[in-house]
């Protein structure tokens, strides 16, 4: 181990690349409550919470997320009708939206509607405009998110070629409406494009995000979280360290420096991701001035990079999950909060609690509001977990 004199300094880890097509300020800001409205794509986003985790990791302050996805839904709120007709579904959609009390709404419709093809476009146009107008009454800020294309996973699943052509027409219409109404517009077909194996001949898509062409797997949600948060204008805030060894302090563990995160860590890829998925780079380090030898770069005893002094002086990727315990907690709390909100706005046994058999269990309906403080408490825990921390970075000779 070479003897080194080090100045103790705290660095703020800053800024990497920016993938977003949008320039300027992110579309969400600390203090916002974001309602996610749509069908199964939105509904299932709450199961693993990747979008929310990435959003909170990159935002420099707390943002609350309320998932109002409902499988099979469309701009009429048709899936939410319970015992009523479509109009009741629409009313329910507006009521639940008001219950979430959002400052911003991510509106993600069109995928179910597109099955109606050209014939349904006119209705979709009118109904979407109506919905936007009604939602803006309780949430002035609205972002339109057009759906991702269906993937083709091979027989016996159907080819989505015709559907995707129809979807493009619906997406184009959403884009026009957004422009007309001056609303931000994100096209998942562009932000999260489908990769085809062979152009021209329809063969299964590579690196599918879905289990059936339509619905995202856990891996798919993990991937799209990054893409969507970027599309919302948030920089990825990867670590970019340029150090000189004299900035570091010598200790028995090696050369150390305290660094403050600009963001909390990104969730690791889920356990059952495709084999081709590589661990994610959290950033890079360039450290000059080290004596010859092979070094390891660590945070929290987790080795994020290994390389020779020369390689380090040229820059190495930092790859790895340096705080798995924290990430587990983060994911648990997000998922738990989502579940609490699910029980709040969409409780089981509605027939008995609120509807025509409430004479039997209506007395238990009070329990539904008891979820409110539980959600509040969960939000506080989440905000705490997503506050960036000070970390100690260590460079030591490889063993």
């Amino acid at each position, binding site marked *: 181990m070479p003897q080194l004199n080090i100045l103790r300094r705290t660095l703020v880890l800053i800024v990497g690349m920016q993938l977003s097509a949008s320039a300027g300020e992110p579309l969400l800001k600390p203090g916002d409550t974001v309602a996610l409205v749509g069908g199964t794509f939105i*509904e299932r986003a709450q199961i693993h919470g990747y979008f929310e985790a990435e959003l909170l990791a990159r935002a420099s302050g707390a943002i609350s997320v309320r998932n109002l996805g409902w499988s099979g*839904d469309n701009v009429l709120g048709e899936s939410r009708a*319970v015992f009523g007709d479509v109009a009741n579904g629409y009313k329910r959609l507006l009521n639940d939206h008001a219950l979430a009390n959002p400052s911003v709404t991510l509106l993600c419709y069109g995928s179910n509607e597109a099955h109606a093809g050209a014939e349904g476009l006119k209705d979709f146009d009118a109904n979407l405009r109506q919905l936007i107008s009604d939602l803006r009454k309780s949430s002035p800020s609205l972002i339109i998110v057009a759906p991702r294309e269906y993937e083709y996973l091979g027989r016996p699943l159907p080819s989505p070629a015709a559907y995707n052509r129809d979807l493009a027409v619906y997406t184009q219409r959403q884009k026009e409406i957004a422009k007309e109404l001056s609303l931000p517009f994100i096209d998942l077909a562009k932000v999260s494009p489908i990769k085809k194996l062979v152009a021209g001949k329809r063969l299964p898509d590579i690196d599918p995000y879905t289990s059936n062409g339509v619905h995202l797997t856990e891996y798919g949600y993990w991937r799209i979280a990054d893409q969507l948060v970027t599309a919302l204008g948030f920089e990825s805030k990867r670590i970019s360290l340029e150090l000189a060894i004299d900035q570091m302090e010598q200790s028995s563990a090696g050369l150390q420096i305290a660094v403050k995160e600009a963001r909390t860590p990104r969730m690791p890829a889920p356990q*059952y991701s495709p084999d081709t998925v590589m661990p994610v780079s959290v950033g890079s380090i360039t450290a000059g001035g080290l004596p010859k030898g092979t070094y390891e770069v660590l945070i929290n005893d987790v080795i994020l990079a290994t390389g020779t002094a020369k390689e380090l002086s040229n820059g190495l990727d930092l790859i790895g999950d340096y705080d798995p315990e924290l990430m587990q907690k983060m994911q648990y709390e997000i998922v738990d909060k989502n579940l609490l909100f699910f029980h709040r706005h969409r409780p089981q046994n509605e*027939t008995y609690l609120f509807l025509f058999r409430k004479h039997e269990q209506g007395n238990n309906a009070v329990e539904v509001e*008891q979820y409110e403080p539980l959600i509040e408490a969960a939000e506080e825990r989440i905000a705490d977990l997503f506050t960036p921390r000070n970390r100690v970075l260590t460079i030591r000779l490889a063993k």
Partner: protein
Amino acid sequence: MKTFQKVLLLTLVIHNAAFAQRDLKDIPDPDPLKELETFIVPEGFEVNLYAADPQIAKPIQMNFDAQGRLWIASSEVYPHIKPGQKATDKILVVEDQNRDGIADKTSVFVDGLLIPTGVVPGDGGCYVANSTDLIHFADLDGDLKSDRQNVVLSGFGTEDTHHLLHTLRWGHDGALYMNQSIYIHSHVETPYGVKRLRGGGIWQFRPESMKLEILCEGFVNPWGHHFDRWGQHFATDGAYGEGINYVFPGAEYVTKPGLIRRVSGLNPGSPKHCGLEIISGRHIPESWIGSMVTNDFRAHRVCRFVVSESGSGFASTQEEELIKTTHVAFRPIDVKMGPDGAIYIADWYNPIIQHGEVDFRDDRRDHLHGRIWRISAKDRDLAPRYDINNMSITELFDLLLVPEEWLRLHAKLALKNRNHDEVEAKLGKWLAKQLSDESNTKRDECLLEAMFVYQCIDRIDSHILSEAMNSEDHRLRARAVRVISENRDKLDGFRALIEQAVADEHERVRLEAVRALGEEDDLAAVASVASALESRVDQFMDFAIWKSFRDLSEVWLPKVLSGEFTFNGDGPALLTALEAVQAKDAAKVLLNVLVTSDLTERAKVSTIRAVLEQGNPQEVSDVLSYALDANSGISDPELRSLLEASIAITGRRKLIPTASSNIVTPILNDTGKEYYPQSLIAAGAWKITALKESITKVANNVDANEAHRVAAIYALGRYGDPDSISTISQIANGTDSSVIQIRIASVQALAGPALNSAIDIALATLKENITSDEIGTLVRSLIERKNGPELLEKRVQETTLSPDIARSVIRVVQDSNLGLDALIATVRSAAKLSENTWKFEPQIVASLVEAANEGDPIAGEAIFRRKSLQCMKCHAIGGAGGKVGPDLVSLGASAQVDYLVASLIAPNDKVKENFHSIQVIDVDGQVHTGIQVRRAGGTLVLRNAKDELEQIAVDDIELEKAGRSLMPDGLIDDLTKQEVADLVSFLSALGKVGDFAVSREAIARTYQALEFTPKGHFAVARSSFNTIATGHPDLQWEPTYAKVNGEVVLEELPVFKLRQGVDDMSFVQTILRVSNAGEIGILLNAEEGVEIWINGKPITAENLASFNFDSGDHVFTAGLNRAQRTKPLLLKASFPSGTSAQGQWLLGK
């Protein structure tokens, strides 16, 4: 809002349940062995505990996997998660590793679920219905712990946690079937678009292609679904009681939203059932194979039904239970055949049924217990076991022919996961070998299974399908049509095969074809559906045709309305189709069909009626002109009823035919026509002014036919103008007012336009000689009018009525059920009925005696049986009846008419010996009155007027004196003279040779009728009729007696209105006391509409013949379907020559 009413109805039933459950305080000891001790199982079977708490808890659904392990969905959170509570529900896997019939290992496969309501192993793990989602949990390393989860489908409703997605089951076709219940509204995204199912139904899902279809819709809470050997589906329902339901594609059941027509269950009047398994395999005795087992969880029974083919569908009868018990916590909810061939029952175990009507947080809700019971046949080999996962493809093919359904299913599911090319190649060879063997008796089964395997691997072989289509076995042909239908996109000759099927000789094959055609989109398919109408159409076929016509309506309706398509001139088919879609603007089309097609008279008549219902004034006019044309070929009686119908329909539709005068005028010139009177009324109804004068003439013409005059008066009433009203009044009050029919007609005609005049005429008429029927017509025409009762009451106050007239009026008013007590009181006082009418005075007695000689004993018996008179409560006839008064069995043969009259008027003057009552005052000052039964051992036993026995200690008697007759004075005061005469006539006929002598034949005459009480209704509604037969503490039985000839009078029996769609029922019991065991024949006067149980065991009415009876009492229970049964009930025992048996029906109270 039909559905809403149904929901209300259900709610109502459930209230009763809640009421009963609130009373439950005795929570039983949860020891499984104590529960087991209470089980009663059929001869030759035994039950053992397979698994129980704490090993498992709260099982909701269970399914065995290919290794014979039992997967259980278990919920302790049910019915409702608490705020802050973590969902901890589980999927458990239970194994019997040493194969001794008792589970010895349990694995928690998944934890942290929220009320999982279904689990089925498959695809390397299991599918679980969990709240809004269908989730697949995969076990990647075989340690029986889920490693990975994937939400497969989402969007299932959660409006009620016992209705959620449930009853997961693999079909032999490789599809996953799933049920949902009435409150659930599901909106599920698939690659093919959103599938929405609002309400109950059965889903068919293919995970590999993500194809999600709806097999059928409706039901209330269908927690049972299984398939017979030939792939026909059956379902049971945990809330609506029609027993076993036959399920076919597109079928709609009782609760489908917007239901118009529905398919009925096979056992109307059944209790709620949960789970369904069709018995197969070598372990269970042959006679039970094919039986359908389901659970009556409310009445703690595991039930069995035998289902047989019937027309295009099936018929089902209930058989002896597998388990019955009085243990209130035994809640059997699922049933599956196990790998050893035994029958497994999931017991939710709960003293309360845990439905929503008991508070979610009620302490008595059990969250801890649960059992799996195993029913096996004694001394029979268990089913052979196979290592399915390690068998070769060809070995798996051979397994497709074993008797065990479970093995056949898992063989196919295993093949589904093998290489499909290899399976297909080998299947062809295997099948060819099987079919080339001439001695193979399972050729049809081979074809059946080959079709299934092809479905499992998502391929098709048209050769196999046409082989199957040409089989002699219609069951195979029917299955082939289903497969063809589901694979139409892959089959070139699809339509040709369906055309062949729609002309098949068997109804079920045709039904499948009709349903297959419903998914087509061309007129040829419509014509093919119509062709099915040419053969027999039973209820299932009727539904299938109706549904297919509806499904195809976009194809044919516009073409029919534009005149491009006429169903090839097939009027009845066109009518059926129009009816199916409730077409509104089809009158023109129908008229065209009438004119251009060659229809039968019946078809013409129904077409004409449809035009009357739908047509505009011109079309109605045209169709009537067509009908009345001499060339129409419609007979006069039919024309008469058509005219009647047209008056009623146009009245209801407030429509007047355009050329009404042209229709009616020609008829008015021909007074000889059978429908001449109707044409008069029509002229009035349609207010044809030009004809009023001639009609007035008819009404005024005292020489005219009375019926014509009546019609003319009706017609004038329809005109309703002042002139007409005044004409009617003049006629009614005029010189010919003695013609009573004219006056009644006048009252009827005036009741609408001039109610006061009508009442005047009616009251004047009531003062004269008038029959009770005529009084009925008069009074009803007034009280059924708005303000009629009030005005009538006011006018009656100003008049007097003779007692007999008043009695008749009162009876009419009472029968109207309008609740007109004030009117009755007024009538009573107008006739001074408060005083004794029938005084014991010589001239009164004499006049009654005279009348009695002309009386009608049949009417008299009905009067005797009237509840208000309570004759039978005290008097028996031939032993059947009360014992307070003397048995009247031979009264007529021994008593004179004047004696009878006197006894009725003044009971105290003619008390039969030994029927003097005594009055006793005891030391407490309590008065006891009754007939002495006995005085012995220091106790006096009295039979009081209620036919109850009272015991008084002789030492306690303070005072004793002779009492009056227990027959009250004035009992017959409310009877008319004619009624008294009839009653006396009946009494005097008793015992005389003839209809009123009690037969010596062994006819049951003393019965108990099941009284309608809220508790009793609940007991009946929540369990099966079997429970009634086997006895239930909440049932209240009251004596009822047959008529003298042995007939039970249905109209007198309490009626159980169980629920919508179930016919009303009445129940009676009687007892055959056998003193010497042996063969006794049991005869029933008519089979229709009756179910018989002997000692609680159901006997089909057709089978009712001869039985070997042990000595002792045998309880006969009869369930009488009030919609079907028209004849009275009569049960007779016969003793064949040579039998040693002796016995008799119990009599008495």
